[in-house]
């Protein structure tokens, strides 16, 4: 009967600690894939302060309402038509109020992929 395996125990705990450290290190080195509302960046440049505030609220609603039931999808996944379809479909399930829905669509409309027709075809 082996009563105690201190070395192996220590190594395995170190492995868990290292994994946690890796998650932290990788995560802190990356930029958010959900674009922040930055007045200097192209999609938001030249917009009024009230408009920027609405877009910021839209981003917050998008993160809060759409990350609970599933992992958050990147806005670049589709164009404005694609997002309108999905947000309308999910609004009731995620208990999204009409004003929140409108703000989410406004934000996604600014940061989403360009319309299919506008994309450069190969």
């Amino acid at each position: 009967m082996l009563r105690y395996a201190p070395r192996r125990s220590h190594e395995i705990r170190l492995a868990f600690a290292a994994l946690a450290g890796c998650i932290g290190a990788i995560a802190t080195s990356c930029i958010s894939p959900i674009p922040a509302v930055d007045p200097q960046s192209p999609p938001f440049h030249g917009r009024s302060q009230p408009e920027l505030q609405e877009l910021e609220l839209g981003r917050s609603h998008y993160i809060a309402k759409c990350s609970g039931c599933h992992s958050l999808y990147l806005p670049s996944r589709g164009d404005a038509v694609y997002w309108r379809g999905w947000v309308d479909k999910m609004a009731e399930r995620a208990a999204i109020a009409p004003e929140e829905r409108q703000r989410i669509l406004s934000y996604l409309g600014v940061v989403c992929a360009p319309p299919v027709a506008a994309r450069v075809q190969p």
Partner: protein
Amino acid sequence: MSLAVQARFGRIPARLAARMRKTLGSALGKRWCALGVLAAVLAAPAARARADERVFTYSYEPKVLPKDALEFEQWATLRAGKEDGVFSRWDLRTEFEYGLLDQLTTALYLNFESLHIDRDEEQVDEFEFKGLSSEWKWKFLDPTADPIGVLGYFEATTNFEDVELEEKLVLGKNFDRVVLAFNAICEQEWEFENEETETELAVEFTAGVAYRFTDRFALGLEAREVNVFPDMENLEHAAVFLGPTLHYNTNRWWVTLTFLPQVAGLRGDTQDGLNLDEFERMEVRLIFGIHF
């Protein structure tokens, strides 16, 4: 294993492998029927409920429900295999979860246990209600939008004879199709008896990595390291579990299955390098969610 089960059954002798199939067959048929009926009855009133998807079954991801959203889930965990004899224990949990705020979610669990033990001097085959749990989760940071997802978790469980408290720090990160999660867990248990109160402390770490091959299907690996401190004093039992996890979701339902065999006994009596005194040879957990 809980203090109650340990005290009642202690170390279990005799003929594990040869009788495992028989055990599973006899115990599970009746239990699954009861579980199915229970799930159907409990799910019926949750007309607007929506279940969130979980890629892992032992590790939580830093996610909470949106405000006013409802969720229903059914859990089933099998723990099987002791040093000797036939041992299988099913933990069944029925969960209703509600988003109080966009960052705060609470949940109520109904807990049931099915236990089957077959040894020379004792046969046990029982199914009982194991009390209620109240769960609270607060999301501080999102695993996709923020550099790292952070969530605080608290759970209290009682069956009116003992009390368990559980606290978790949940970290996670989503990189497009890759999902990472890490949980640090502390669990305290008090079992109140006539003359004295038995206590136990468990410190646990879980981690998971998964890849979403498609929008519907994910495959991953989960690990769990558990340390048990009877009487909240010295570390007496520790073991590591490691195994695959499989997730599938549709627009209406989702299911996640994890197979977690014990791969190393780190502390306590061991057999073939495993601690089968305090822990089991393998665990299997299935979580099933339905969207309404």
